[in-house]
């Protein structure tokens, strides 16, 4: 039975754990088998509980053709994490600080959310998109809020998913569709106490009021950029106004996040290789997204020509291009390399070659191998095979003595084969930079 309450983020009361092992951290191995509450008592407590945390059992039949079509519509939408840092939910939050993968596709991509469109009806003519109005043979499907809630809860209860990723075509009108999407999430949160992760797409052209409502309910919201500039957008999708439909909505989210907490932040996504854009153009847009609009992540999706779309005859973008862009994104966002240093990774025509950009940057910045005993944190993280975590471990380890062997570095997490040419350990370098083929 469901209890109707308004959805609010609030800390839950502290948990009392009725077992000896959980009240204290165990200090011996034998302290691991509590046997306190009898099954009879637990069964009685469960029976008496009026709180139904997983909603109603599946009722009327679900149209599986709809589930398939609307699921397929989001196949190229990316949501690689289901982690959220919610205030006051340290003990009982269902979205973890580190995301969980529940399954993987054949290609190795993590499946952690019920990723679906609300409707595949769309008046836009994006050349790459299977939901475009001109797509051949497209059958229109739409959920209603209650139906979407039922499917999400059924999958959540089985632990198939960590939450919901809800995107959509525009439908008849962006605000009408956005309203229904918000209603579905509101039902989940309020009527069914759903504390799982929710990523909600903001449709291009949505009103500021709808953006605010979406942000009050979701862990993460995003508007898809798709292209790095208005000129490229004109090529991808002539009916979308880059500044008004996309960037203005990103600014709405930025404004509202000053007073509405968004636990997993704002993200966006770009199609790579559909409109002839260079990697440098994409990187320049990425800088604006992170520095000006405070985005949490920028995702990339290598263009795949799909049958029935306007771009079906265009060439497929290689998957490695997407991978190299993610490496650049990582160097900027996590390693905090500056724009000037990262520029060394691009070739003269503005593309990234199919090689590790960190190696290209390291070759440009190191004149000779460095000694890990004297190198600063900033120098260490520029060595291929050493990340921020490993660099911190090296600094901690140095407090207790010198590092004289490569295997000690390997024990700290250094990828010795990649880092070797850039390090001088015990007074000598493992190999010269020139010998290390790139």
């Amino acid at each position, binding site marked *: 039975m469901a209890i109707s309450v308004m959805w609010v983020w609030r800390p839950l009361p502290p948990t009392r754990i009725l077992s000896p092992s959980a009240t204290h951290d165990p200090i011996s191995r034998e302290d691991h088998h509590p046997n*306190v509450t009898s*099954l009879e008592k637990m069964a009685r407590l469960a*029976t008496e*509980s009026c709180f139904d945390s997983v909603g109603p059992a599946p009722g009327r039949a679900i149209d599986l053709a709809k589930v398939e079509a609307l699921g397929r519509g989001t196949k190229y939408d990316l949501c690689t994490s289901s982690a959220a840092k919610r205030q006051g939910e340290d003990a009982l939050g269902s979205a973890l600080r580190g995301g969980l993968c529940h399954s993987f596709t*054949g*290609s190795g991509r993590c499946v952690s959310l019920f990723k679906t469109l609300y409707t595949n009806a769309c008046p836009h003519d994006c050349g790459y998109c299977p939901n475009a109005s001109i797509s051949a043979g497209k059958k229109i499907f739409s959920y209603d809020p209650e139906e979407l809630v039922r499917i999400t809860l059924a999958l959540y209860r089985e632990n198939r998913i960590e939450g919901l990723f809800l995107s959509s075509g525009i439908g008849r009108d962006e605000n009408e569709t956005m309203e229904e999407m918000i209603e579905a999430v509101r039902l989940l949160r309020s009527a069914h106490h759903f504390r799982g992760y929710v990523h909600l797409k903001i449709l291009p052209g949505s009103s500021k009021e709808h953006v605010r409502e979406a942000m009050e309910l979701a862990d993460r919201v995003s508007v898809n950029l798709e292209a790095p500039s208005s000129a490229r957008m004109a090529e991808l999708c002539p009916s979308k106004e880059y500044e008004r439909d996309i960037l203005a909505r990103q600014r709405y989210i930025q404004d509202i996040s000053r007073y509405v907490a968004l636990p997993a932040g704002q993200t966006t996504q770009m199609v790579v290789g559909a409109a002839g854009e260079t990697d440098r153009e994409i990187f320049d847009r990425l800088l604006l997204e992170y520095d000006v609009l405070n985005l949490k992540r920028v995702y990339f999706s290598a263009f795949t020509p799909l049958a029935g779309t306007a771009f079906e005859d265009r060439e497929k973008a290689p998957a490695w291009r997407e991978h190299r862009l993610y490496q650049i994104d990582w160097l900027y966002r996590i390693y905090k390399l500056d724009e000037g240093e990262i520029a060394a990774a691009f070739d003269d025509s503005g593309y990234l070659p199919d090689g590790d950009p960190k190696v290209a940057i390291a070759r440009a910045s190191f004149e000779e191998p460095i000694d890990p005993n004297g190198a600063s944190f900033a120098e260490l993280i520029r060595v291929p095979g050493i990340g921020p975590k490993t660099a911190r471990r090296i600094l901690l380890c140095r407090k207790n003595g010198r590092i004289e062997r490569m295997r000690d570095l390997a024990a*700290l997490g250094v990828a010795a084969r990649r880092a070797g040419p850039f390090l001088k350990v015990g007074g000598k370098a493992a190999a010269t930079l020139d010998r290390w083929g790139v």
Partner: protein
Amino acid sequence: MMRTGELLRHLAAHRNSTDRLMARARTLSPEEVEASTDPEVLRIRRMVLAVRGEVCRMRGFIRLRPLGERVLWGRISPHHDVGFEISDFFARRFPGKLIVLGDGRRSWTSLYSEGALHRQIGDGLSSTLADISRIMDLLAEGSEEKGDGVTGADEKAEKGRDGGEEKEREKGQPSEAREGGGMERSDLWSVYYRSQDEPRKAGGRRYSGRISRRAERSASLEAERGSATAKLEDLRRR
């Protein structure tokens, strides 16, 4: 950096944990655990990471099934002593539900109710589920005698549904045949999974590199493997 309490808890849960390693771990600061190159400290760090990894995988790959209105059960067979860590996690996620996890030999039952976490360890999943069913039936009978038969009736209705599904699955009927009358949850997942699936690529880290055979079996990933595996009846036979 690992906190000392968490480190000790996970080290104690490791199947190869010894009193000597526990005593050594108690003397270590978080910095030493993080950055020492001492072989024994490295061993402790690896053991703790192995336990943490198993907890993470179990949380993701376990599949829960209902038994009546108030029980969710799932099969796990962890290497390390992490049963309660997993069952507590789901008990907190689904307050008021009895979470029963285990295999043929062991079971862990957790319930989060009114701010308290209750636990029970058992001798096997099937025997614990049988015990719970029996207790639930008695409670339902008791409430019927008092004139409040709603819970018991619901319980039996749900059991009837589950039993029906099991029988239909055994007949091996295609999912489309049941689409109009009543959907199986596994059909919903299979259909959704297929909509997201992409062919295995050359190079790249493929499906098989992401999830072990053992975890696959434990989670009964039918859609992913393309074949149906464990049912409640199978567990009872073991």
